[in-house]
């Protein structure tokens, strides 16, 4: 029976179902045990699965990742929680040097089935160290997969896919969406495959590429443009590495214009890569340069006034779309 869940509940449901399905799946991280996680994502897991499979760790992000890698080498599928995506920098070496390279330097004789859940994103008054979107660091590193769901449905289906994937997957869950995004989520094994984008709105005039918390304001902006007679196709990337190149290029062939919207900062964000790929591979289809609307190259300030200045929103996306439509 499908049911209405929040994004956060959908993540939790995926954890419950995967842990019931596969005894090799376990959870570790800071405060994930009896406390149920800083955001409550892991609530109830400890009661059902006990301290052997729901492991409270010391404040040791590097060890959390390293332990996950070690367990994965014995056939386990650990799901590690970074309390905030901002803290992932403390486990960076284990992710980019240990996990990402392991299969390569073993000559393909091993794999690293770990998931690192990273609550990311701003618009929650978190300030510099509770608001970051560090996805580009990991997209840049071969050997990792990176996903970022925008709906409750995808939050569940992508986490299940990530847990069953034999590679290290960084799962960016957006904190703003935790309780705000709600939707129908099927019970059981509804997998959202890694590497497949979702077209959230069809349109012939502009392709808007986005993900995470930027999907909802992008759709709203697209509705505004529709009133002007401009139909925007909104593609939710869902997976950032490897991104769904076919879906992106097909849409651009149709629309001839593309805007990338992301909450990550501008320079060398995924927008830069998508722009380069579209330009290299579909230059002849384009009627305008690929444009970007992103967070500016700065930090995530605490003040609501300051943060709002930085965050892409419906108005800013609308302006960017109009500019692109008029190019």
């Amino acid at each position: 029976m499908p049911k209405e869940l929040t994004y956060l509940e959908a993540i939790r449901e995926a954890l419950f179902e995967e842990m019931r399905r596969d005894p090799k799946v376990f959870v570790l991280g800071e405060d994930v045990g009896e406390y149920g996680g800083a955001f409550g994502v892991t609530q109830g897991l400890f009661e059902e699965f006990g301290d052997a499979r729901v492991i409270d760790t010391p404040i040791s992000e590097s060890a959390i990742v390293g332990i996950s890698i070690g367990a994965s080498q014995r056939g386990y599928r650990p799901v590690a929680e970074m309390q905030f995506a901002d803290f992932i920098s403390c486990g960076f070496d284990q992710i980019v040097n240990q996990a990402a390279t392991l299969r390569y330097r073993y000559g393909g004789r091993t794999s690293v089935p770990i998931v690192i859940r990273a609550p990311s994103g701003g618009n929650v008054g978190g300030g510099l160290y509770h608001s970051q979107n560090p996805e580009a660091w990991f997209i840049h590193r071969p050997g990792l997969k990176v996903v970022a769901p925008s709906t409750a449905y995808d939050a569940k289906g992508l986490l299940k896919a990530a847990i069953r994937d034999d590679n290290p997957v960084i799962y960016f869950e957006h904190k703003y969406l935790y309780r705000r995004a709600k939707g129908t989520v099927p019970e059981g094994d509804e997998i959202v495959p890694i590497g497949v984008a979702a077209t959230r709105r069809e349109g012939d005039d502009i392709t808007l590429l986005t993900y995470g918390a930027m999907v909802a304001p992008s759709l709203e902006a697209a509705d505004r443009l529709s009133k002007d007679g401009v139909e925007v196709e909104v593609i939710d990337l869902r997976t950032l590495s490897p991104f769904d190149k076919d879906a992106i290029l097909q849409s651009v062939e149709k629309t001839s214009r593309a805007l990338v919207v992301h909450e990550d900062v501008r320079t060398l964000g995924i927008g830069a890569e998508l722009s380069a790929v579209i330009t290299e591979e579909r230059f002849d289809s384009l009627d305008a340069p690929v444009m970007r609307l992103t967070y500016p190259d700065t930090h995530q300030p605490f003040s609501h006034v300051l943060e709002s200045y930085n965050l892409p929103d419906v108005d800013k996306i609308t302006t960017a779309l109009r500019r692109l439509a008029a190019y």
Partner: protein
Amino acid sequence: MPTIKRTKFKLTSEQLLEMFYWLKLIRAFDERLSILVRQGKVRSGVYTGIGQEAIIVGTCFGLRREDYICPLHRDLGSFLMKGVDPKVMMSQMFAKTTGLSQGRDSALHSGVNELGIFGNTSMLGANLPVAAGLALTFKMEKTDNVVVAYFGEGASNVGDFHEALNFAGVQHLPIVFVCENNLYAYSVPVERSMAIDDVADRAESYGFEGVAINGNDVLAVYQSTQGALARARNGHGPTLIECKTYRWHGHSEHDKAFYRTDEELAMWKSRDPIPTFTTFLLARNVLSTEKLKEVEQRVTATIDEAVEFALNAPDPAPEEAVRDLYA
């Protein structure tokens, strides 16, 4: 907390001879590698453990196939003792397809899950959280297998050391932490990287026993290891064994090691673990001049065969450079 029992773990004459063979083989393997580097036949990535062999032989001797080792960059001998064919290890150093990495990386950056060997990165100490993860799975499975994790005194200053040993202490994991204190972290002497004399003292702050022993005495290393293994197998958690030793060569083969004196090197060469053990075996009639010759011939033949094999093994196909990133 129970202290390490200095029980005499009995060794038969055959076992003592086997230990002797390993000491000789590992020394000869590294010496040959050193020559091969000078001849330009092996490009780089050679970090010999000449002078430190007693640590590897004393700790690896009698390990189970199921036990896991997490070696450091000088511990090529541990791969051999855990069951990797010398031909494969030589191929690894020659970057051939018959090596563990199949040319992807040099040195000991590859492992063999089936033999219980984890291959670390160049980030020293980064193997320790992985070791904790491996040991965690042994604990989960309630087996009495053990992880033996190696690091240098230099790596004991890395954050991963603290995170891993702390977690291992909290979780009472079946690990033996083996510190190979060779007095230099590349060029920096131990007194300039630590304000205490013994790395072993650090164990106390993690809630388990640490001992400092003569790392050039293979039997002392063996006795201590057997005690620590027994504790770990019986659920008494980790032990840190600090083996005081000295590396005869530079940090790597290109390092002339001008930061230390000839007198210091000569003093440590007088504590060479191999002649000490040879004298012991001869005095006990375990070894005879004939047997010694036999062992030396066997060692030379094994290494000649390995070099021959590696020299003639194929280079990887160029396009292998971009394969095996994802499972």
